């Protein structure tokens, strides 16, 4: 079943074309790692797909009403914002509110547990550390309980253990039949936890497929300008950028 369909999606920022004719579809049960250098268009791709900015072409989400879209896809923006000193449990419950559910809906407790936040539930959310706030915001998106989750660099501020735990949560969501699109810079975590890698480069899709087929030496040099080391271990594939190439 397809949860997201983009057809010749084009988006501009001012006069500049940031995305050009992107076509792709994401099915249920996929955990898609969206990778690419800074400024490649990863954030724009997700915002345009959600219809949060003017687009040309079509996106199956952008054509929905705001309410129907909130029931289909949850969005976790890159820059975290918690304006007021609300409790962690209330902040996470905003995800349930977005679906028109009560603030004590079971999905709220489930999301808190999933992100290991049960002990924080009565703390003021904006008084937590940056990494803890990031987890609270992920839990908020999980509490929206949608078939699709789009997350923009959600693990950027987390410690290694929390990065791995969070990627496991995303992978588990995919195993439950939901779909996740997550942008990230840790190619090793992307290779290990995502079922599919989409490489965005200069506003277009440079490669799309399973990690081992996508993350080739040629692509790493062309898109990221790095050489890389890779190995197969019992714990899964290891992928590590090593050195820059070119000027």
């Amino acid at each position, binding site marked *: 079943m397809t949860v997201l369909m983009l057809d010749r999606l084009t988006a501009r920022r001012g006069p500049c074309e940031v995305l050009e004719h992107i076509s792709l579809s994401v099915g249920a049960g996929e955990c898609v790692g969206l990778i690419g250098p800074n400024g490649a268009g990863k954030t724009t791709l997700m915002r345009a797909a959600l219809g949060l900015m003017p687009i040309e072409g079509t996106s199956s989400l952008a054509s929905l009403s705001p309410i129907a879209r909130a029931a289909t896809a949850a969005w976790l923006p890159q820059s975290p914002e918690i304006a007021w000193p609300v409790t962690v449990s209330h902040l996470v419950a905003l995800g349930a*509110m977005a679906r028109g559910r009560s603030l004590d809906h079971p999905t709220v407790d489930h999301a808190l547990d999933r992100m290991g936040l049960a002990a924080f539930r009565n703390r003021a959310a904006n008084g937590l550390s940056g990494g803890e706030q990031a987890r609270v915001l992920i839990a908020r998106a999980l509490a929206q309980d949608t078939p699709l989750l789009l997350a923009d660099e959600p693990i950027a501020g987390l410690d290694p253990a929390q990065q791995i735990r969070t990627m496991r949560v995303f992978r588990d969501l995919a195993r439950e039949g939901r779909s996740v699109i997550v942008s990230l810079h840790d190619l090793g975590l992307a290779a290990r936890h995502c079922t599919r890698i989409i490489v965005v480069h200069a506003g277009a899709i440079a490669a799309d497929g399973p990690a081992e087929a996508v993350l080739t030496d040629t692509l790493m040099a062309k898109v990221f300008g790095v050489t890389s080391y890779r190995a197969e271990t019992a714990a899964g594939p290891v992928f590590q950028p090593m050195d820059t190439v070119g000027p």
Partner: protein
Amino acid sequence: MSFRVLIASLSALVAVLFALSLVTGVAPVGPGESLAALVHDDAGPLTMVMREIRLPRAILAVMVGVSLGLSGAAMQGFLRNPLAEPGLIGVSSSAALGAVLALQTGFAAAFTLALPVAALVGAVVGVGVILFLAGPGGGAFTLILAGIALSALTGALTSLVLNLSPNPFAANEIVFWMMGSLSDRSFDHVWMALPIMALGWLALARTGRGLEALTLGEDAAASMGVDLARLRLILLGGVAASVGAATAVAGAIGFVGLVVPHLLRPLVGGRPSRLLLASALGGAALVLAADVAVRMVLPGRDLKLGVLMALVGAPVFLHLIWRMRGQP
């Protein structure tokens, strides 16, 4: 404190201050006698004083306080900034300009409600300019900038009117009006302002869910089913109607919309939707208390409500800033 207890306490406070406002005045009569005269028509001067002067004054204090407190909470929630206040979008300064022009040209003397009507026209023009500048496509930042620009322009035009006023009495009248007051108001003012304010209150009461979602920023709120353009329109319309009407009947009264939401936010757990009702009641209590105080502190000297509010509000605000030092 639970939300219900907070709302019940604030309501009780408003009721007590409302009664206190009714029994405060220059006439040397006891509280019991005053309230008895209000209920039972004794065909004497006391019933007239109670029904024609003090009752509309107390009702207007509640209406103006609800408008300013509610609008302040809504503006702070929408802009996600504890320093936002209803005057930020330039509605009150536009209303003031309308009133000042009416006083200067003599239109204010044309009929009883000429002054507030002129102020309302000013507010409507101001909102039109704001919606044109920061309408459906504009973000919070555009709205703040447009509001600052409009306030600066209307403030300058008000100063120009004062500057060029050939009539010192008109200039004096303008200055006093701009200080804000609830004295010498009648039920005519209540009936003129109430429908407009009520529309504004109803609009603002509908913004709660959107303001909750905006806790997470505009992008997240939009993805959570909030139509931001519609929310902005409802919120601006609500603030404009309630604050425009409040300025029209009471002049410029600052600090209520800034201080009240700020004081009550910790008591509602920071939740923007709950702050709306709490701030409406808190605003009513503060304006009632201040309007009682202006009559008690300097009886017979016509101390202006806006002056007292700033004199009390600014130190309270300084105290808050003092306590907030060092907090993130």
